[in-house]
């Protein structure tokens, strides 16, 4: 059995004394899609943001491929060492935000090339060629010179996905990528995510789209109260073992 791409062990995080993550552990296989579900306040966004350290966990280990950080001892490290470890871990993942957070003062193309050129130091021409290819992949080949404000919400989020891919990460983290969208725009974004899955990208996606998760996910994590309440294949969503999960699912599915 090959080693999983992502390994999370004993993750803890508290905000002002309130524990948001309590001893969370799981693994993610390369090329798989992991859907993280749960009621709001269950800690699923914090979990995702911990993977690229937008939130710094209080304890636990996060490893992505060959980069790992043990947050239990992280504060003991020197500043330079911390910086190096953070940069290494973050370089393994690309992040897609709920409200895209595109750079509004840059064109779509610049949004995609900024990381590769400025951070990874790749030649501008090469990065642009890649960016064009990615834009084509998300169906926005002709919008490279537009500013984000000139795009629809769905298009903006597709650019957000392309920006995350542009760094060529080993895993793409998606934090409720469709929650901020008008219902009629959800489909085009989910379509792009589905496409990523079929192209073999490793995805971790926090979502409320139960049907989407059921269709696309290889692994489902159901988070509740800062712990993984239920975990398994997509079948978990059809036949949850736990009462909490069942209630949540029926609520979500009724609402739709």
């Amino acid at each position, binding site marked *: 059995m090959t080693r999983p791409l992502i390994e999370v062990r004993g993750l803890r995080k508290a905000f002002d004394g309130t524990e948001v993550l309590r001893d969370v552990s799981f693994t993610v296989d390369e090329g798989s899609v992991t859907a993280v579900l749960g009621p709001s306040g269950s800690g699923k966004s914090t979990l995702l943001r911990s993977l*690229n350290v*937008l939130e710094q966990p209080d304890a636990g280990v996060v490893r992505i491929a060959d980069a790992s950080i043990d947050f239990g001892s992280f504060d003991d490290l020197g500043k330079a060492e911390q*910086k190096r470890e953070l*940069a290494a871990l*973050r*370089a393994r*993942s*690309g*992040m897609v*935000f709920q*409200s895209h*957070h*595109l*750079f*509004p*003062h*840059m064109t779509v193309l610049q949004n995609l090339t*900024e*990381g590769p050129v*400025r*951070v*990874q130091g790749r030649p501008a021409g090469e990065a642009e060629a890649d960016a064009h290819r990615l834009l084509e992949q998300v169906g926005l080949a002709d919008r490279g010179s537009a*500013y*984000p*404000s*000139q795009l629809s919400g769905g298009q903006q989020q597709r650019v957000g996905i392309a*920006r*995350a891919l542009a*760094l060529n990460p080993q895993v793409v983290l998606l934090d409720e990528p469709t929650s901020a969208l008008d219902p009629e725009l959800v489909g085009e974004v989910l379509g792009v995510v589905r496409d990523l899955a079929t192209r073999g990208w490793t995805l971790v996606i926090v979502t409320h789209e139960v049907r989407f998760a059921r269709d696309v996910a290889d692994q489902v994590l159901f988070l509740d109260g800062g712990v993984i309440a239920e975990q398994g294949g997509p079948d978990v969503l059809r036949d949850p073992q736990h009462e909490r999960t069942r209630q949540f699912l029926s609520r979500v599915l009724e609402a739709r």
Partner: protein
Amino acid sequence: MHKLRFVLLLLAMAVVAPLALLVGAGPASAADGSGEDRVVRVGTEGTYPPFTFEDPDTGDLTGYDVDVVKAVAQEAGWRLEFATSPFDAIFGSLDSGRIDVVANQITINPEREARYRFSEPYTYSRGVIVTAADDDSITTLADLKGKTTAQSETSNWSQVAKDAGAKVENVEQFSQAATLLAQGRVDAIVNDNIAVLDYLETSGSDEVKIAGYAGDDVGEQALTFRKDAPQLQREADQALETLRADGTLARLSEKYFGTDVSSEASTEIDLQGDRSATTWEVLRSTAGPMLWGAVKGTIPLTVISFVIGLALALVVALGRLSSSRLANVPARVFVSIIRGTPLLAQLFIVYFGLGQIGLKLDPYVAATVAFSLNVAGYAAEIIRGAILSVPRGQFEAATSIGMDRRLTMRRVVLPQAARIAVPPLGNTLLSLIKDTSLAAVVLVPELFRAAVSAASTSFEYLPLYLLAAFYYWVICFLVSLAQEPLERRLGRYVS
């Protein structure tokens, strides 16, 4: 679009009109075109009014010396070609034969007489002592002992005053000395009577008077030729004699100095500054210096202080935002001090205060330091606010693509903050433009100083300060015109 063009046209007229007032155009004496048409090349500075300068209206070379040599040429049948050059290069040009004669208030002295050939003098000047109009206690050099005089630092008159036992306050130009004298801050000025007469003529001041002569030496200025040109010199002498006899020289002198300086006898005449210039003449003679003050003082002072101030402000703003107390506290204190104390006090502390503890800054430098710090204090808060207004998600997005703090600031945060900061920073710039007028009090030669100088001798406060205000308005208006396209450019991504 039409409206804009109209405003621009109005503005152009507003700028050009005062320019046109600068100096009355002298009717050029016809110099060329007579009989034999021998070409004589004249060397002159062209930047030394009222002796030799370019008429701001026409661009033609004019002035007392220029008119004199033209008149001589007409008498002698020369055809003139003028060559302007810096004073330092004029004798070299004469030596090397590029010019034939110098008409530039060249004073005859033994060293020059050994090398060159001089015509009869066409200007006679004497050192005079200038005092306040109501002061009769000083009439000779001997009376200057223990008194205070205002002098140009490099002039030989400064030495004359010191030799007479006077204390010397250094000033940059005669009008400044006259202001100090009129205000009773000094007792006297020693200077060349022509410079004094020129001042009295242009300012129309009746607050100061020529009280007596500074010694007995008479300075004589003449056309200067090479030793190997006796013929030209003879012709010039003959011409000058004719011009003196028919009153032409006296007339030219009257035109530029309001009195006759072309004969030796003239230095004996008691020259009282009793002409009073009209409001129009005062404005006309001050519009130029004020414009020059804007170009040389106000604008560079503003630009330099603003650029340095903004750079400082960015540092202070980042300090304010820093979580480290070491950066945070000093930045906070700096902003508090700058915003909580008068700019004038800041300027005085930098100029006079630091001067007292051994750091004597040039007025221009002191003003730049004070204004830069002031801009930094205000702009820092603007920049801080602008940075804080950039959404948190932008920092997170930058972090998620691997940017460190510095890169995030430079590429993501500051470009967005700039759009938000530009309108309030525009206000800061407009304030600064006007605040530079405070530099006048530490003797920086800028726009307002020119107005103050002129007002203190002419008493034309209302028109002069209105004109100054008008100049400031024009500069501010132009700046605010430039702000709009800048805002549009920085905000082009906002739908």
